[in-house]
């Protein structure tokens, strides 16, 4: 799936990024994500702390969807742009957002 396609699913793009999405991962515990997430993943979380960008950059996560109407702060957005990691936000909660992406065939 192209990163662009997440937009078509209704997720609001906050900043663009590089690459393709093959997998989905949902978790709010950074060390877990660090240990378990595969490359080329879209990561769904409610964590907006700047550390999420470092976690994404290290694991090869391509896009982050911030669920439940949480907001990214400017620092996080700037860092994401630098690392070319796409950021999205949504009013959907993690459960529904996962379901929506899962339904599109992402595993």
């Amino acid at each position, binding site marked *: 799936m192209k990163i662009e396609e997440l937009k078509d699913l209704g997720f609001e793009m906050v900043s663009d990024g590089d690459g393709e999405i093959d997998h989905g991962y*949902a*978790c709010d*515990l950074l060390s877990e994500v660090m240990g378990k997430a595969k490359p080329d993943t879209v990561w769904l979380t409610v964590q907006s702390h700047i550390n999420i960008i470092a976690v994404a950059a290290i694991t090869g996560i391509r896009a982050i969807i911030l669920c439940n109407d949480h907001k990214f702060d400017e620092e996080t957005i700037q860092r994401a742009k630098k690392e070319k990691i796409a950021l999205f936000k949504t009013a959907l909660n*993690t*459960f529904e957002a996962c*379901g929506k992406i899962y339904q599109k065939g992402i595993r």
Partner: protein
Amino acid sequence: MLLSKIAEIVNGKMLWDFEDKNCSVCGATDMVSELLAVGRDGMVLVTGLATSQMLKAADIVGVGGIIVVRGKEMNEEFIEMAKSYKIPLISTKLVMFTTCGLLFCAGLKDINGNSVELYKWKV
């Protein structure tokens, strides 16, 4: 949807002999405050955080059952505590994303009442 059916869908194990019951709403988070914010009476909670703090918060918001994902080990103490709160516990090796995906597609609703029916026409 019966908890036993939910356990079957996620290939999960029921961790104590709780009474089977119907749950129609589901939410997923690893954050305690998030659970406190969105938790609803009778909601199935999907979480990777098997801690006593999460259990206390789950009890406070009145969740109907907890699915612990990523095959997290739980000690006897944790299970006993869930029992004392009468909160059904299911464990699955699946990750949160897959657990949510399967349950959503099987028809569980989110806390706002949204279900897979909303998206079916787009497939």
